């Protein structure tokens, strides 16, 4: 059992604090993705779990044992690095087997293990090559094999796919998920790519500037973002934001310029007059049929996606993007009307950026799942 518990962990380089007190529980066998923009402290957090970076304050425990003072090799973690970090002068077999050699395993046994692991990641026939003679994808496989062979309690990945081309990246992503399903070791995967995060994760951790913004399944994070930051970061194309004010009596949010959007009663309750950011996902907005009432906009331009179309509208000079399967033709500047179902209106306190709706909706959703 290798659950990881992170308690108020901080990291400072000199006076410069880059991780500000992170609390996180990672369950045994779970695939956790830490997602955030470049420089938000993801790698630092991962490296503190690995033991490559000293923990300034707080506590990291693996399988119930505090590891703060332990050497990397004693922690039972294996790591896959962004640039693979293969030993250039060793053959593929030597690279994969190096940890076992250091651990003092007999040569015959080692070779048997290396061969078996290499086969499992599709590296047969390449064992005698040097890393310089391999393609990017093959190097990635060697890096994976090197981690797998140690049978670690915890797998750590630091953006391992970001040096691959798009197609290979998808392929290796599937591979990693398959390996995880087979081995079922606890995995922590760091990335700045939301697609990678959404597709791989059992649960994801959204980080921003050294703090955790939200932890949840990809579905929860997408459906019920806890802050404007998460809402804007997850989803492609990004969520639209319009400023407004809640009117409890009207059970609506009044946008600047006077337009109204219906909202659910629960969301409106107790927030009368509150200034909010209204978040609308492009894929949850519909273009209304002529004569229907809704959000008045003007057409700006459109982008063809093949599977659908992105319509860029302007509401009071603020951009509103709509992702729709409908093929409609608009002239530039032509007025149109958009409709949004009340459940798809995300409301965030303009001051705190916290969601007014997520917590309640999440609790309700989880209760439904458990029932």
């Amino acid at each position, binding site marked *: 059992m290798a659950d990881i518990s992170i308690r108020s962990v901080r990291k400072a380089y000199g006076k410069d604090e880059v991780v500000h007190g992170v609390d996180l529980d990672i369950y045994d066998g779970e695939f956790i993705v830490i997602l955030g923009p470049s420089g938000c402290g993801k790698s630092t957090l991962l490296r503190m779990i690995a033991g490559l970076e000293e923990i300034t304050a707080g506590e990291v425990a693996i399988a119930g044992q505090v590891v703060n003072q332990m050497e990397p*090799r004693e922690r039972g973690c294996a*790591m896959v690095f962004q640039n693979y970090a293969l030993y250039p002068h060793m053959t593929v077999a030597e690279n994969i087997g190096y940890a076992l050699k*250091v651990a003092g395993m007999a040569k015959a046994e080692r070779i048997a293990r290396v061969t078996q692991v290499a086969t499992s990641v599709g590296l047969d026939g390449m064992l005698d090559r040097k890393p310089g003679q391999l393609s990017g994808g093959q190097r990635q496989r060697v890096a994976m094999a*090197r981690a797998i062979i*140690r049978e670690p309690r915890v797998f750590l990945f630091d953006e391992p796919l970001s040096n691959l081309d798009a197609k290979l990246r998808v392929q290796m992503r599937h591979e990693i998920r398959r390996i995880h399903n087979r081995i079922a070791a606890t995995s922590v995967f760091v990335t700045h790519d939301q697609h990678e995060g959404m597709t791989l994760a059992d649960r994801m951790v959204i980080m921003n500037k050294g703090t955790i913004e939200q932890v949840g399944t990809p579905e929860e994070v997408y459906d019920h973002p806890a802050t404007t930051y998460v809402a804007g970061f997850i989803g492609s194309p990004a969520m639209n934001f319009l400023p407004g004010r809640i009117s409890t009596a009207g059970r609506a949010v009044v946008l600047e310029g006077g337009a109204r959007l219906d909202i659910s009663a629960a969301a409106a309750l107790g927030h009368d007059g509150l200034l909010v950011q209204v978040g609308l996902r492009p894929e949850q907005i519909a273009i209304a049929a002529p004569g229907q009432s809704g959000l008045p906009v003007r057409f700006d331009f459109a982008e063809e996606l093949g599977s659908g179309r992105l319509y860029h509208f302007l509401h009071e000079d603020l951009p509103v993007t709509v992702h729709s399967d409908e093929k409609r033709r608009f002239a530039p500047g032509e007025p149109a009307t958009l409709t949004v179902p009340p459940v798809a209106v995300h409301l965030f306190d303009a001051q705190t950026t916290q969601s007014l709706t997520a917590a309640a909706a999440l609790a309700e959703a989880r209760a439904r799942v458990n029932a």
Partner: protein
Amino acid sequence: MIERTPVLNILTHFILAVGFILLFLPLWIAFVAATHTIQAVNSAPVELWPGNQLWVNMQEAWVKSDFGQKFVNTLIVAVAVVIGKITIAAITAFGIVFFNHRLRMVIFWLIFITLMLPLEVRIVPTYAVAANALLPFQKLMDWTGLTWLIESASGIRVAMEWNLLNSYTGLILPLIATATGTFLYRQFFLTIPDELVEAAKMDGSGPLRFLWDILIPLSRTNIAALATIMFVYAWNQYLWPLLVITDRANYGLVVVELRTLVPDSLTTGGGTPTWHLAMAATLMIMIPPILVVIFMQRWFVRGLINTDK
């Protein structure tokens, strides 16, 4: 920058030819002188084409200077300096680059300063230390009062002495302790990606294991380059051996010995200068460094331009 102008071509080739002649002519004259009899060498005009006395001259020079033992000595010193230097430099650079301790920069600058103090500059203190290698420790003990303490407690006055004059150790140690190698290694170590270091850590490899399993194999070309430079450097040493070795029969080196063959009023006593022997000896002495350079050339160039990674 590829220019295709005939004039420039001719000019560059001309400069190349002049350079070649300037470098080659002295060697050629030495070679020619080594192949003639004493009479032919000393008669005007200067001979420009080789004669048939090379073997005879080489044999005579060899016997006259007792080169057998001295070649062995020189080889021992040169090889020991090379090995010592490669080892010390690797370990020092390893300490400076991969360990994040407080004294790192201090040590780095101390080593850097020694770059500006070659053996020739600090030859007097170095000689004093070679005469008694424990002198610095003795001074330290005297200065801190430790000697006095021991003397008043036990009645024995501590006087440490370790004489390095007339020994291989004395010849070798001061030549090993210089900074060039450390710098070559340091520059290379700095190009090793952090991830590689971390991967080794994750694989459970400790610092020494990392040095041995990963850094040293990756430094092969640097080691070859350093070994070549240092072999030639050690082989050509003159001033230091001249100073520390008075027992020339047992510890003499060939380059120093060459002096006794170069004719001056002392060696010939006013007789005919024996240039033919001096040149024959010079040729023989040049051979080992040339062989080393030729043999290591490929690695040497790669090590200096650092492309093989």
